């Protein structure tokens, strides 16, 4: 398979069925940068003057996000929260530190680190046990708090997270399945600083799938932690993503249509529409042949029967 964009037709490293395209390394990197630039622009995320704080975990999404923002020339520092989850936290901390020293530093970007154990006296698993709360919800509260605090205290204009298309589509599926309407509002890729003390939050990777971001990291030699947080095992999010990926494999573009369609509906509230009964009254009248309501002169049943009778049997 060759790149569909290069005139010289280089060997493609990835094919993207939902875009009917295949890209070589260079064209793929350009494609990813364009997708992020489009998200930043269309959702009015930030400008080149803004100071951005990226929430990094050591995983592919957040490190790729930091990498892309620096490549696009933005002023982006990062915050890493060390959760104190044994080997996983040690390894992810090492990866983030390594990226900061070897790549980000050359762009003048710095890494801020918060160690949960230093402030709370224990890692999040121990804290969750003491508090009788699920580890992931304890973790979520701590991370949100620390990121917001760092952003506000250190005067960042905006906080960026590595949420991708799959994260948002899976979250939307979960919210819709349980009709959690109040959470739907929070799924926009840009959440304004609604009140004093709350930082503005953005998701610049919302146009890219998880696979595309992992591919970007591989192509650009970003050394991220492939291993998962051990607490993620068996999570609902993973189940939703698996279901969506099966649909995506069968009909490419499903995830994108699902999430983007939702965003479109959200930004353009539907005009007041007539009720179904009103619409029926306006458009339906009796069939010329049988009298049942139809939008045409003759109803589809009568048309079908007429055709069946005149057709020559085989």
């Amino acid at each position, binding site marked *: *398979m060759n790149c569909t964009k290069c005139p010289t037709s280089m060997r*493609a*490293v*990835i*094919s993207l069925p939902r875009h009917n395209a*295949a890209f070589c390394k260079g064209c793929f990197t350009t494609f990813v940068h364009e997708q992020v630039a489009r998200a930043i622009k269309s959702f009015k995320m930030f400008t080149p003057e803004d100071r951005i704080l990226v929430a990094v975990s050591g*995983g*592919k*999404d957040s490190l790729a996000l930091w990498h892309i923002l620096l490549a696009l020339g933005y002023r982006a520092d990062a915050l890493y929260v060390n959760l104190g989850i044994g080997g996983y936290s040690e390894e992810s901390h090492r990866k983030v530190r390594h990226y900061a020293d070897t790549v980000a530093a050359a762009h003048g970007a710095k890494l801020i680190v918060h160690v949960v154990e230093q402030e709370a006296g224990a890692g999040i698993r121990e804290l969750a046990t003491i508090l009788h709360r699920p580890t*992931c*919800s304890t*973790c*979520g509260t701590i991370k949100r708090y620390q990121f917001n605090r760092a952003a506000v205290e250190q005067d960042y204009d905006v906080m960026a997270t590595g*949420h991708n298309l*799959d*994260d948002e589509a899976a*979250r939307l599926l979960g919210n819709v399945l349980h009709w959690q309407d109040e959470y739907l509002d929070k799924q926009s890729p840009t959440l304004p600083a609604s009140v004093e003390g709350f930082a503005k939050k953005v998701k610049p990777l919302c146009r890219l*799938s*998880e*696979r595309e*971001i*992992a*591919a970007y990291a*591989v*192509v650009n*030699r970003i050394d991220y932690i*492939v*291993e*998962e*947080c051990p*607490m*993620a*095992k068996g*999570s609902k*999010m*993973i189940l939703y*993503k*698996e279901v969506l*990926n*099966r649909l*995506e*494999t069968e009909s490419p573009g499903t995830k994108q249509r699902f999430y983007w369609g939702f965003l479109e509906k959200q930004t353009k509230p539907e005009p007041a529409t007539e009720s179904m009964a009103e619409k029926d009254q306006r458009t339906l009248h009796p069939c010329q042949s049988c009298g049942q309501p139809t939008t045409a002169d003759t109803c589809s049943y009568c048309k079908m029967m007429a055709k069946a009778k005149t057709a020559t049997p085989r």
Partner: protein
Amino acid sequence: MLVHLSHPHRQVEIKGPKRTKELLRELNLVIEAHLVIRGDELVTEDEMLADADQIEIRPVISGGSV
């Protein structure tokens, strides 16, 4: 060919030559959730993989609450 897999870490020996998509199908893995890396280069689904190749199949799905 020697194939490295993650979650959990393991290695399997698969007979080549074989196309990437056939390798994934044989291991019952969805393309949308994986990348296939030969040496340190990404390859597409129709790439032919040889017996001498070092292959890594890397999962791309991450979970946890968001």
